């Protein structure tokens, strides 16, 4: 790490793309700061860094969406300047953006060849030709789909694949992918990787942005790390470890990621209990207990039914049957309000869509679950009381913001997550169900969130944590339940934690019910 790697170091190796001293400033931020790097022909270069490190801006410059203030881009040793994404596309640089760019109501074929449909003399689209081209592309990647299927009829994962086919269909020299796997299942991810490796064989070069360090080692040949807009260095995959990358990304060593992780004596009294929870086709006969001060992990593959279960416990979604006990007595939960009144909080995985009021201020968000406590006897809001309380909570949860009146929208992912935790602390929860607490959160902020969870557990709160990130569950939990196709297939105590064991339960290869 340290100094950016000068391009002439690898002069013998053919760089298909080279950037010299690129800089780009946004109001108040130096998003890309004097970045120099090269992309070799036929390699997969992973680009990692915390949120706001400048990865997206850098790639947007490379594909023509943003223009740099200074610096040069060389494509196959020719200086190029792009004025739009369309220019870059024509030059052979194609990008798959984080958000889907597909149009629901039209066919796969028209989506892939958007605005590039083959046309006849009168600007009329040649449908037969379009179908043929689409079918060809689909067969090339072993996809048994009809080119005339409307995109809205496809499941999420397939849509993501179509998105990538769209980028590939221009036959680019370089394909840039910005976190393409964030909404894919494991199976879809391995399909995607296979597609990318095939393309690599054909000589395509890739820049692959990701937050998942595991993917870096599964897929990439080389990895480049960015921090604060700068290129802090690149390494061959063979000569770097995950810890090295984290240190490069954060700029310091994180030694104490999860806080105190020794096996601790949790209180033995059962605090919260879920019994016989079932919903046909989603989850069956779920039964588990939670002790005071325990952090219980729910592991499983995406779609195993963990979130559905949590939503049913909290009273958002219906259940066919099931009982909830808190401190020994049964509680009836039919609506979220029932759960909240009993001190059960659910922090959704969909932070932006369902968890927070993005357009409103931190202050307004923090008081939202408990408005009643902040009103005076006339039903008006008590400003002083609110300010005191909100200020304390912002301090306590270390939310980095210039003021309580900042809109949630303007906070980073990690700070939004902290705000959501702070918001729910207002109800003084006895049990917290936490769904994917660190999705889209930086390594640094992650560590803070883990410590916060541990603190909450230490004062006696019961925590149920759903996560698809196994190292995280292993790092923080006291006990892990594994769910496979709506059933608990395994229960693993802390001293038996291992990724292999949990994965075996999660994939349904092992099952505690069938010995």
């Amino acid at each position: 790490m340290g100094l950016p790697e000068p391009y002439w170091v690898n002069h013998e190796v053919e760089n298909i793309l080279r950037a010299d001293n690129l800089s780009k400033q946004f109001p108040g931020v130096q998003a890309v700061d004097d970045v120099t790097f090269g992309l070799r022909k036929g390699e997969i270069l992973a680009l990692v860094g915390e949120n706001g490190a400048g990865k997206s801006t850098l790639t947007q410059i490379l594909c023509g969406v943003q223009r740099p203030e200074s610096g040069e881009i060389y494509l196959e040793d020719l200086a190029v300047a792009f004025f739009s994404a369309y220019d870059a596309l024509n030059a052979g640089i194609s990008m798959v953006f984080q958000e889907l760019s597909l149009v629901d109501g039209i066919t796969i074929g028209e989506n892939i060849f958007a605005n590039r449909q083959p046309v006849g003399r009168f600007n009329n689209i040649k449908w037969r030709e379009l179908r043929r081209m689409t079918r060809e592309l689909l067969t090339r990647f072993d996809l048994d789909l009809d080119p005339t299927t409307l995109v809205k009829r496809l499941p999420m994962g397939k849509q993501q694949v179509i998105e990538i086919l769209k980028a590939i269909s221009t036959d680019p020299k370089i394909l840039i992918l910005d976190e393409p796997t964030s909404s894919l299942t494991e199976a879809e991810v391995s399909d995607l990787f296979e597609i990318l490796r095939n393309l690599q064989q054909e000589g395509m070069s890739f820049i692959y942005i990701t937050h998942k360090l595991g993917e870096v080692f599964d897929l990439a040949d080389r990895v480049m790390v960015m921090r604060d807009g700068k290129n802090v260095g690149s390494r061959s995959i063979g000569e770097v470890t995950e810890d090295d990358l984290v240190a490069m990304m954060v700029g310091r060593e994180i030694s104490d990621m999860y806080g105190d992780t020794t096996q601790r004596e949790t209180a033995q009294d059962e605090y919260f209990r879920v019994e016989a929870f079932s919903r046909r086709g989603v989850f069956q006969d779920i039964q588990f207990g939670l002790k005071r001060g325990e952090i219980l992990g729910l592991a499983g593959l995406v779609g195993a039914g963990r979130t559905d279960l949590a939503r049913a416990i909290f009273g958002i979604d219906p259940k066919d049957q099931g009982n909830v006990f808190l401190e020994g007595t049964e509680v009836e939960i039919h609506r979220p309000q029932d759960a909240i009144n009993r001190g059960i909080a659910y922090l959704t995985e969909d932070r932006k869509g369902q968890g927070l009021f993005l357009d409103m201020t931190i202050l307004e968000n923090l008081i939202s679950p408990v408005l009643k406590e902040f009103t005076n006897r006339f039903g008006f809001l008590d400003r002083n009381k609110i300010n005191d309380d909100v200020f304390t909570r912002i301090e306590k949860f270390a939310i980095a913001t210039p003021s309580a009146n900042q809109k949630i929208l303007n906070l980073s992912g990690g700070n939004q997550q902290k705000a959501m935790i702070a918001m729910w602390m207002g109800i003084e929860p006895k049990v917290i169900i936490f769904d994917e607490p660190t999705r889209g959160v930086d390594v640094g902020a992650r560590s803070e969130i883990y410590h916060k969870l541990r603190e909450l557990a230490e004062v006696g709160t019961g925590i149920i944590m759903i996560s698809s990130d196994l190292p995280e569950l292993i790092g923080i939990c006291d006990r892990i339940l594994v769910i496979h196709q709506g059933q608990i297939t395994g229960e693993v105590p802390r001293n038996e934690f291992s990724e292999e064991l949990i994965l075996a339960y999660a994939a349904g290869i092992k099952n505690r019910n069938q010995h």
Partner: protein
Amino acid sequence: MTEQETRTGRITTNSTESGLLATLRRLASFREFVLLLVIIAFTIIMALASPIFITRLNIEAILLALSVEATIAVGMVVLLISGGLDLSVGSTLAFVGVVTGLALTAGISSPLSILIGLLAALSVGLLNGSLVAKLKINPFITTLGTMITIRGLLLILAEGRAVLNLPKSFTVVGQGRLFGIQYPIFILLILVVGGDLLLRNSRFFRQSYYIGGNENAARLSGINVDLVKIFNYCLVAVLAGTAGLMITARFGSSSLTVGTGIELRVITACIIGGASLSGGEGSVLGAFLGALFMGMLANALNLLGVDVYYQSFVTGLILILAVVFDVLNERRKASRS
């Protein structure tokens, strides 16, 4: 293991259905087809209920009555597909009638007066389009503003009085016949057939689907989003102007209140025909069939002697039903995949 199962499970659903059933299911997913079936069923029932319903005279009456709304709907649906909306079509319609009427009474020849009228419409379209595309003002607010402004402007121009006694060389546009069919019906049919073909097959018009579906993505595919948007606002304005000319010629005078509330009926027709207010979906044929269905319904209620007040009530119900049908349909399909 499970991964394999889910993967193959998804793929097989696509290709195993046998011919006829698959074709039918496919057709049923097109709004135009469903609407056509409804219209045919409705026609059969009405033919049994009233002997007059499928006489030539009545069919002509239906088409003539809906020609104004359907003409505008041809443009409106393209605009809706691109994510736009135009509330000012009713005002534009009346505005063009007044401008053309004033030009005619000032002694300007009919073709030139028509041209002036259409240019007036075009300028409204340019104004709406530029405000929405360039200044990024919300289409609802923009066109609500121009709707009120243009209605005011035409009152000022006409000094509050209708323009009467328009020359025969002009009124022939709304009253003449070709092959025994009245001009407005002719114009409408040409617009529907031509518009549908263009919107289905021309790359230029299909750009609207991309813009309405995902504006940023459209821009990234090299579509000149602003240009297409402005074009669409001009298109709907000129078609509203055309409707204004037809109606003015039919009555031989420029009314100041004509077209009031028509924008909502036009949008209703488009949505019954499968368009969505959030853009990316719809077709010209669908919009026409939507207007046709509304026209037939109004006519049928008339023939059956139902109070005119029920028309609005029933049309509203149909709109709600169409949207509910859509939502349920989507939900069913989503749960199946």
